[in-house]
C-alpha cells in the first residue's frame, strides 16, 4: 500500500513512543552513550569524571588480548551451539503442546518450571547430572559404553556442558513465546491444507513454519542477542569460575571481570562495544534477511 511517512504521522508516533522512549532513553540509551564515550577514555578518574586523555588504546588493548579473543571464540561457539538447537527443540515442543493432547496443561507446566526454578537448584542439579562419578549423564552414556566424561572439570567439555545447560534453560521461555505465536495462525489454513492432502508433517512444514516466521524471527534475534550475552549460566554451572582453566570464559564474563574486578572501566566498555558491534551486524543481517523471508 502507499502508506508514506509524513510529519503528522511522525509526531503521532512520537506521542505513542514517548513513555517508552523516556524510560529507555534514560535507563538504556543514555548509559550506553556514556559508556561508549568511556571506551575512548584512556586516562581518567572514573569516580570524579575527570578525563585526562582520550584515544583508541582500550580498543587496541582488547584486540591484542588473547583472553578477549578466547572469550569471543567461546561465545561464538556457544551461540552456534545453543541458538539453532534451542529454536528447533522449542518449536517442536510448542507445536506438540498446542495440540489437543492429554495432560497438556501438565506438560506445559513441566516445560515452564525450569524457567522459574531457583538458579541455585538448577546449578546444583546440573552439576550432579554432569558429575563425572555419580552423574546421571555419564551413567546414561555408560549404557552405550561411553567411558565417563569429565563434563565440568575437563576444559574440552566445558563448552558442551554449558551449551546443554543453556538449551535446557531457554526451552521454557521459547516455548511460551512460540505457543503465543501459534495462536496467531488462522485455523482455516490448516483446514485448506488438509483438503489439499497435506499430512501433519507437511502441514507443519508448509503452514506452521512459514506462518510462524515472524515469531521465529523474533525468537532467533532475541536468542542470538541473549546468547551473546551469556553470563549467568557460566556462573551457575562452574560455581563462579569461568570453567576449568577459563575454558568457558565468555565475552560478558570478560567484561564483567574487567569492570568489577579490575576497575578497568575503559577496557570493559571497549569490550562491550566490540561485542555490541558483532551482535549489531548480525542482527542487521537478520533483519535484512527477515524482511525478505518473513511472511506477513
Amino acid at each position, binding site marked *: 500500500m502507499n502508506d508514506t511517512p509524513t510529519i503528522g504521522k511522525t509526531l503521532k508516533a512520537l506521542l505513542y513512543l514517548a513513555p517508552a522512549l523516556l524510560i529507555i532513553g534514560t535507563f538504556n540509551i543514555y548509559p550506553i552513550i556514556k559508556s561508549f564515550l568511556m571506551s575512548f577514555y584512556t586516562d581518567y578518574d572514573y569516580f570524579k569524571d575527570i578525563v585526562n586523555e582520550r584515544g583508541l588504546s582500550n580498543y587496541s588493548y582488547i584486540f591484542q588480548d588473547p583472553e578477549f579473543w578466547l572469550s569471543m571464540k567461546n561465545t561464538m561457539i556457544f551461540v552456534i551451539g545453543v541458538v539453532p538447537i534451542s529454536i528447533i527443540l522449542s518449536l517442536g515442543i510448542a507445536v506438540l503442546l498446542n495440540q489437543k493432547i492429554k495432560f497438556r496443561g501438565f506438560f506445559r507446566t513441566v516445560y515452564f518450571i525450569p524457567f522459574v526454578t531457583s538458579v541455585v537448584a538448577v546449578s546444583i542439579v546440573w552439576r550432579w547430572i554432569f558429575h563425572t562419578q555419580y552423574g546421571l549423564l555419564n551413567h546414561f552414556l555408560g549404557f552405550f559404553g561411553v567411558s565417563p566424561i569429565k563434563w565440568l572439570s575437563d576444559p574440552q567439555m566445558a563448552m558442551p556442558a554449558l551449551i546443554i545447560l543453556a538449551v535446557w534453560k531457554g526451552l521454557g521461555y521459547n516455548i511460551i513465546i512460540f505457543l503465543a505465536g501459534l495462536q496467531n495462525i488462522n485455523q482455516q489454513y490448516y*483446514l485448506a*491444507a488438509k*483438503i489439499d*492432502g*497435506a499430512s501433519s508433517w507437511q502441514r507443519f512444514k508448509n503452514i506452521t513454519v512459514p*506462518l510462524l516466521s515472524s515469531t521465529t524471527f523474533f525468537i532467533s534475534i532475541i536468542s542470538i542477542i541473549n546468547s551473546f550475552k551469556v553470563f549467568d549460566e557460566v556462573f551457575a554451572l562452574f560455581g563462579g569460575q569461568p570453567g576449568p582453566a577459563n575454558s568457558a570464559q565468555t565475552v560478558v564474563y570478560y567484561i564483567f571481570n574487567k569492570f568489577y574486578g579490575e576497575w578497568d572501566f575503559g577496557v570493559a566498555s571497549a569490550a562491550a562495544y566490540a561485542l555490541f558491534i558483532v551482535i549489531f551486524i548480525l542482527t542487521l543481517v537478520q533483519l535484512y534477511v527477515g524482511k525478505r523471508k518473513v511472511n506477513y
Partner: protein
Amino acid sequence: MEVQMKDVTMQFNNITAVDRMNVTIEDGELVSMLGPSGCGKSTTLFMLAGLYKPTAGEIFFGDRLVNKIEPEHREIGMVFQNYALYPHLSVLKNIMFPLKMRKVSKGEAEELAREMAKLVQIDHLLDRKPGQLSGGQQQRVAIARALVKKPKILLLDEPLSNLDARLRLEMREEIRRIQQEVKITTIFVTHDQEEAMSISDKILLMKDGKFQQFCPPQEMYDHPENEFVASFLGSPPINLFPASLMDNLKDVSISGTNDVITLSSPLKEGMDPARQVTLGIRPEDFYIETDEKKQGILGKTIMVERIGRDNLLNVEVQNKTVRAIVSPDLRIERGDVVKLGILPERAHLFAVHTGENLLDSKLR
C-alpha cells in the same frame, strides 16, 4: 465416487446446524446445494470433507465408511466460501500446493498449475501473493487450487460469488467441463438459482439444517415437495393463495373470492386432505383468460412492467399482489381488470400446516 449420508447431524453446542441428513449422491453427479443463508450448506460440505466430525450419523464414499478418515486422505478438492488461500505463497505456489502434497514432480506440477491458471484467467498474476489480488481473482485461485489435482470429490462453496456475469458463465462451463471429463462427483453451493438449474444434475435443497428435496432441477421446479421448496425456487416467486378444497377433491375455491379452479392433477392417494389448503401458481403459469366462461382469478392490474419480451403484471387479488408473466400480445394497461387463467397441470396444492404438496405427480 458415490457419496452417501446417513442421518448425518452436526451440532455446535446447542445449535443444530445440520439435522439428520439422508442423501445419496451418485458417482459423477453434479449436485447443486441450495438453501437460505445459514441453513447448513457449508457445514454439510465441511462434514463431507472431514473437517468437521458429524456429531451423529455416517458418511460413506462408495461403500467405505469415512467418518474416521482424515480429510487429507479423502482425495477431495474444495473451494472454501472464504477462499482460505495460503497468504505466504504466490498464486502459482498456491495452485501447486495440492500437487506438491501428492509428490508430483515440480516440473509437472508447475505445468499443470499454469494450465489451470490459464483456464481461470489468472495466468498473468502467478507471482503475486493473495493479498495483492482482488476478491474475484482470489476466488479464481481457490477454484484452480481445488481443480488442479483432479480430485475424486469436488466441494465448491459458492465458488463464483465474486465474479461478474460473463466470467461466472465461463467459469461454470469450465467447472462443468472438467467435472464431466473426469467424472468427479461434485457438490456445488450456489445462491444463483439460474445457475443451479442450468448446470446441475440434481439440486439438493435445505432449510434450517433440514433436508427438503433432492432431485433434478426441472422436477424440483415443476413438482416441489412442499410449499417452502416451491416458494424458494423461481423469480418472481410463486403466488400463494389461501384456498379450500371442495368436496369433489378437484375444485379449489380461493378464499375471499368467488373464483374456483379445477385441478387437472389428482390428489396423492391415501391422503386425507384438510379442507383448508394453499394454492400455488407460478407467475409464468398464468395466462390472460379472455373467455368469460372459463375459470380464472379476477383482479385489478396495478402495474405493468416489461421484462425481456414479456409483461409482468402485478394484479391485486384480495388485497394481495399476484404476479403474472404474460404474453405482450394483449395490451393491458394499469387499472384494467383481468382474468388470470392457469395453464393445465401447473397448479400446486399444499397442506396449510405441514406445507406438503398434496398433488400426485406422475413423474414419481
